[in-house]
């Protein structure tokens, strides 16, 4: 506004009637929107269902197609650094060139499948360790007094309030040769030489287990908490000792939580990049790192895309397997 105190008439009207205007503008718009949807035989309920599909299409399917497309291209030194899939040649020929060499490359070069295998191994062991630690924790939380449960739940998710990267960096400080643990052990006279922990698979396991533990605990907790205590009483009543009751009642009934927690840890750990990069050594090569290298160091976008697609396929296969397991666990429970 140029002159203080003076507000142009139009503007004044606009501010005064803004809410009204807005609804007036919005109503026909909304009506138009739903009418259009209605023309395609989509009701209000249909529209609600449509939203997640639209989301998936926009942020999953389309990027996926783009990545798939790049994975079938050739690497070139250009901007962007890959060839086009569809090209006009001699004005009249529409040429589609699919390069399967990138995938062949993945199979032929031991580096890739070793990295895949290593990723699966590390993710599996991490998920398993998470289960071993997370189950008793979730169990104790579910058994805790009701007033305590929410507090404990809060504590489990509390680390999320600090940056993930910072927390992984903190582990460097703890595991270093001159880090907390080694300093303590040397000060206590238990060891003379520092134990090498940083830049080993061990450090990667610690990092992954530490970071992903909440994803194991939360689904486990929610199934264990729902478990009807009278079932255990009934078991005890029929002469079953507590430990046996755990094995025959609690454990089978918490299988859906075990499967959910396991995949919530396993699948993201599979593609983990930061933790092996910061804490791992030569043996901790995981597929996430390979991808990074191809993409940024080699500028080999097509190979990187092929790596990503292959990994996605792997994850989808695993998820299908998990669905099967989950269904089985659920019908059992």
């Amino acid at each position: 506004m140029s002159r203080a105190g003076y507000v142009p008439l139009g503007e004044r009207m606009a501010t005064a009637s803004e809410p009204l205007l807005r609804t007036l503008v919005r109503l026909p718009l909304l009506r138009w929107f739903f009418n259009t949807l209605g023309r395609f035989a989509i009701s209000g309920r249909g529209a609600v269902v449509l939203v997640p599909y639209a989301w998936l299409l926009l942020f999953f399917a389309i990027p996926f197609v783009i990545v798939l497309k790049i994975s079938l291209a050739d690497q070139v030194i250009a901007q962007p650094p890959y060839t086009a899939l569809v090209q006009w040649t001699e004005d009249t020929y529409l040429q589609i060139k699919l390069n399967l060499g990138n995938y062949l490359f993945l199979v032929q070069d031991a580096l890739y499948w070793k990295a895949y295998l290593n990723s699966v191994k590390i993710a599996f062991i991490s998920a398993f360790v998470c289960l071993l630690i997370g189950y008793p924790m979730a169990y104790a939380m579910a058994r805790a007094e009701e007033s305590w449960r929410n507090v404990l739940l809060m504590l489990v998710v509390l680390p999320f309030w600090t940056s993930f990267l910072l927390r992984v960096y903190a582990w460097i400080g703890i595991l270093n040769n001159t880090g907390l643990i080694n300093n303590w052990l040397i000060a206590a006279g238990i060891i003379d030489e520092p134990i090498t922990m940083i830049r080993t698979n061990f450090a990667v396991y610690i990092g992954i287990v530490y970071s992903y533990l909440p994803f194991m605990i939360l689904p486990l907790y929610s199934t264990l908490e729902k478990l009807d205590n009278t079932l255990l009483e009934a078991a005890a009543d029929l002469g079953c000792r507590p430990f046996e009751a755990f094995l025959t009642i609690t454990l089978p009934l918490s299988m859906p939580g075990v499967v959910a927690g396991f995949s919530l840890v396993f699948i993201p750990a599979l593609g983990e990049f930061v933790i092996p990069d910061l804490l791992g050594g030569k043996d901790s090569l995981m597929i996430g790192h390979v991808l990074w290298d191809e993409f940024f160091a080699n500028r080999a976008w097509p190979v990187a895309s092929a790596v990503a697609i292959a990994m996605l396929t792997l994850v989808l296969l695993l998820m299908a397997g998990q669905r099967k397991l989950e269904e089985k666990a659920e019908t059992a429970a």
Partner: protein
Amino acid sequence: MAEAKTTTAFEPWTDPNAVPYIEIRNVTKKFGEFVAVDNVSLNIYKQELFCLLGGSGCGKTTLLRMLAGFEEPTSGQIFIDGQDMAGIAPYRRPVNMMFQSYALFPHMTVEHNVAFGLKQDNVPKGEIADRVAKILELVKLGSFGKRKPHQLSGGQRQRVALARALVKQPKLLLLDEPLGALDKKLRESTQFELMKIQDQLGVTFVVVTHDQEEAMTLSSRIGVMNHGRIIQTGTPTEIYEFPNSRFVADFVGTVNMFPGRIVDEDNDYVRIGCDEAACTIFINHGVAAPPNAELWVAVRPEKIHLTREAPADARDNCVRGTVDGIAYMGDMSIYNVRLDSGKMIKVTQPNLIRHSEDTITWDDRVFLHWHASSGVVLTL
């Protein structure tokens, strides 16, 4: 009970030398400040079928859970077969319980549910299969063995729960509302089976119910509970005909209650003045109540006679009223009669004749009268 008794009736509670199988001594259970079971003392004898009867939330389940070992009494002691149960884990007690919520294991088939307890006792496989099959047959679920609990109806689940508790043939069975979800026919046949099982195996039962009819037909004795206390224990007849309080009289069966005061008394009779009845109520036995105390006379509907003409001796126990409503129940009819004082009285009359022109009907002026032994004097 082993010693020969002069009477054939099974009444160990009348025998001062009989040793109770369950002895509950001054047991109180508090949840925080809330008293769920309040200073209950109770003896239950071997082979009894003892019913705990009471309204919702009166502490029946809590008492049962203390017997099974899921709750520790806040104070007091429980003895089963002479052994103090304090600190004894549920899986060590010679007790099986059927839960009000059934507590069937959802991940196991019906067969496995029933077999669960037998497996814990390391019963041989073949025998387990036999016993499971037999008990499932008994509860009419022979062909349902392979199903999971969620594939059963409510009543079927209840029967699985019952079978699971019965199959172990424990010394003491605790049943929490065992037949609530069954239809009338099935309930009656299961009641019959329960009594048969008890006869054959000599099991002692403690059954919780809020169905008084069930309590009446099943039990050797009934304990009526209210607000965590046992108000009265006794045989079904005692509870029905000789209630010790207005609560019991009202809770078990239907009753007409007349508040009044003693106007005349001797060793072998009392006469009670009652404004609402507009007549004196004569009782042919003495009562132990202070002369001017307020008391109540309870008269059961079936003990009142309904006539158009005044009965011969109409000085006591005779009131006039108008028929306000009739409910035809088939075997009998329930008459709602409005006394001249405005009080409503329930009277039941058996329908002895199929049809008669002369039956008492709506708006008829009637006399209500009852025998001198029919009124129960209550001071509580």
